[in-house]
């Protein structure tokens, strides 16, 4: 027994030494399959490989680009289709897609910047639109300026391109649409004596009256959401509003649009026609279980709605209500959506841009194929595809894709700002205080603005 233990420990020390040897061997690039306890040949080869590809990007005439992005069913799927389309004319082209979620991308980008180790970055990254500008401003070393590579930004909706533009320079390639839609349960509206037409091209005041009737007759709130975050952003954007003025200074106090949004939102919650949820699961669960009679979010919300298969045919979509008494108010907005970025580590940005030009900026085939995952194009010509006209059974045979593309064209452009996320969370806190602690709008917005100024000064 004792002997066995001794052997075990001694062999352990031995294998540790071998491990250390392996680590060194990887340096020189010669990996042998001897790594017993520690590294399998596959792993060793993989890591050496990654250091090469991630480190030097598409160097030495190689046509491989590494990409960090997330969501196999959506973004990664789209990339793979784009890869195969581009490969038709460029047989040597290859994408190495490493699934990395948005939060992880942010962590790694921050680590790279603070530690000065940039060679770990891939060639291409995916960013959520709401965080794109702030990432470019906070980590300028990470991004390649794509303005002069000849990508045709004219063919995309201006609202979308605006998300990845900083000081007039382009840092992103627009990808999917986050055009906001209002979805309602047809059957529940009918019980209250309404149809989808009653919720189309209306104002928030009209919406409120009808929502109260629906709640009274069916017991279902019309909307829910993760506190006020997405809902208020959508409402703000529908009127072209921003948390900042044109120079980027916080503008929460004397902001006519924001004030109207806060008033409408507060009323919705107080009347019970909007339920604030504590987590994403209860948010989606509300719609899937029929507890909530509608949804208002970026069009990507359709994927979650369709998970409740037995509700097929019961949903319909329409445009958003618009704010009352605001001159710039519209029935359209955008929420979510993402854009690609090429990093400063990419040694062949031209290859990356050419790839995007031939796919996300010029391939009808790509956009037709990814439509079934719910990824809707922001590339304007794609809307002419007959595929976009097809009725969707889940949404009571409405041609939802072409509807959404028409909405996209009317989304007002608005200034997002580098500190958008800070501003959003400060305003959300203010709203929470107004609703639950009886704070008044003026002082709460003033407090939010003070917090925001403090955050901006100390960043």
């Amino acid at each position, binding site marked *: 027994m*004792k002997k066995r233990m*001794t052997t075990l420990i001694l062999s352990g020390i031995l294998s540790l030494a071998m491990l250390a040897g392996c680590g060194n061997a990887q340096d020189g690039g010669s990996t042998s399959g001897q790594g017993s*306890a*520690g590294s399998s040949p596959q792993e060793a080869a993989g890591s050496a490989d990654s250091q090469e590809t991630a480190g030097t990007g598409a160097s030495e005439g190689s046509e491989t680009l590494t990409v960090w992005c997330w969501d196999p069913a959506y973004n990664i799927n789209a990339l793979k289709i784009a890869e195969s389309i581009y490969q038709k004319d460029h047989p040597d082209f290859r994408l190495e897609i*490493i699934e990395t979620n948005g939060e992880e991308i942010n962590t790694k980008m921050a680590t790279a910047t603070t530690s000065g180790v940039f060679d770990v970055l891939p060639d291409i990254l995916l960013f959520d639109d709401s965080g794109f500008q702030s990432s470019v401003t906070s980590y300028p070393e990470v991004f390649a300026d794509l303005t002069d590579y000849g990508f045709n930004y004219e063919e995309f909706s201006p609202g979308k391109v605006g998300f990845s533009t900083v000081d007039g320079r382009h840092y992103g390639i627009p990808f999917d649409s986050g055009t906001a839609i209002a979805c309602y349960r047809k059957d529940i509206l009918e019980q209250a004596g309404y149809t989808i037409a009653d919720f189309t091209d209306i104002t928030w005041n009209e919406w409120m009256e009808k929502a109260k009737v629906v709640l009274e007759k069916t017991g279902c709130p019309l909307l829910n959401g993760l506190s006020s975050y997405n809902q208020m952003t959508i409402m703000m954007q529908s009127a072209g509003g921003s948390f900042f003025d044109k120079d980027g200074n916080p503008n929460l106090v004397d902001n006519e649009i924001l004030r109207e949004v806060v008033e409408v939102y507060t009323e919705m919650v107080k009347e019970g026609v909007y339920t604030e949820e504590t987590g994403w699961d209860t948010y989606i669960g509300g719609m899937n279980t029929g507890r909530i009679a509608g949804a208002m979010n970026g069009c990507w919300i359709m994927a*979650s709605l369709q*998970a409740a298969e037995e509700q097929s045919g019961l949903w319909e979509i329409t445009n958003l209500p618009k704010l009352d008494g605001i001159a710039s108010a519209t029935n359209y907005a955008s929420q979510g959506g993402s854009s690609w970025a090429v990093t400063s580590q990419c040694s062949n940005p031209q290859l990356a841009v050419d790839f995007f030009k031939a796919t996300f900026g010029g391939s009808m085939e790509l956009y037709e194929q990814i439509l079934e995952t719910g990824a809707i194009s922001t590339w304007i010509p794609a809307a002419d595809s007959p595929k976009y006209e097809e009725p969707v059974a889940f949404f009571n045979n409405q041609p939802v894709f072409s509807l959404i593309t028409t909405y996209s064209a009317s989304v007002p452009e608005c200034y997002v700002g580098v500190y958008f996320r800070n501003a959003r969370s400060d305003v959300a806190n203010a709203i929470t205080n107004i609703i639950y602690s009886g704070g008044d709008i003026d002082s709460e917005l003033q407090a939010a603005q003070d917090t925001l100024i403090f955050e901006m000064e100390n960043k």
Partner: protein
Amino acid sequence: MSRNKKLLRRLPKNIVLMVISLFCVFPLFWVVVAATNKSVDVLRGTLIPGTNLAENWKTLVSTYNIWPALTNSVKYSVVTTFVSLVVSSIAGYGFEVYHDRGKDSVFKVLMLTMMVPFTATMIPLYQMYAGMHLLDTTVGFILPEVSAVFLIMLFRQNSRAFPKEIIEAARIDGESELGIFFKMYVPTMKPTYAAGMTITFMNAWNNFMWAKLIMSNDATQTFPMLISNMTAGHYTDYGELMLAVLISTLPTVIVFFALQKSFVQGMTGAVKG
């Protein structure tokens, strides 16, 4: 009669304990149930096991490459546990058995490092590892864990109960110092090793932040990293997610239950007689 009385007297205590254990077991129960249900049903809050387990499994293995991630996690955790137990137990033994004037000051410094949170050393550590080309490697993963101060302390504390007379007797009999450690100390300290093993394995298995920083490759990523990717999409399949979570808890559960008895002994400082 008296037996019944005894049972009756114990009843209130048992009921309280049962209620508490229900609270503890419920999350695990919920994960198991969720793993067998469709995503929509999970969101409905169902508590009845469903029939969708096979379907969830199919989606999981078709969307995600789970085997490399699982293999990596097992590999990293086992190697970390093994190496760190060897190193830390030798250190703990050394601190207790050998005498040196600077010993206690060194130990104090070591203990102080426990107060430094990982987030504070994260960036310099990353820089160092990037400089040594240890990113995306097993060595890079285990190295920061090898000398675990908590383990050293645990071994030092528990070494106090190890009779010094044995060491002296062995020395007189001509046994080498290494021989004493491996032949006498290690077998006696089995409960402590078991406790250390449980803790280190769990920490290594659940180590997320460091792995997230240094692993940037599908071939080297860990299972917790894979799980964290699953909620990143526009649509989260909760059945699939919970199945992955369930799989991820299994190894720690197995290790814990296998070593449970020794774990308690080890933590309380018992020495195998």
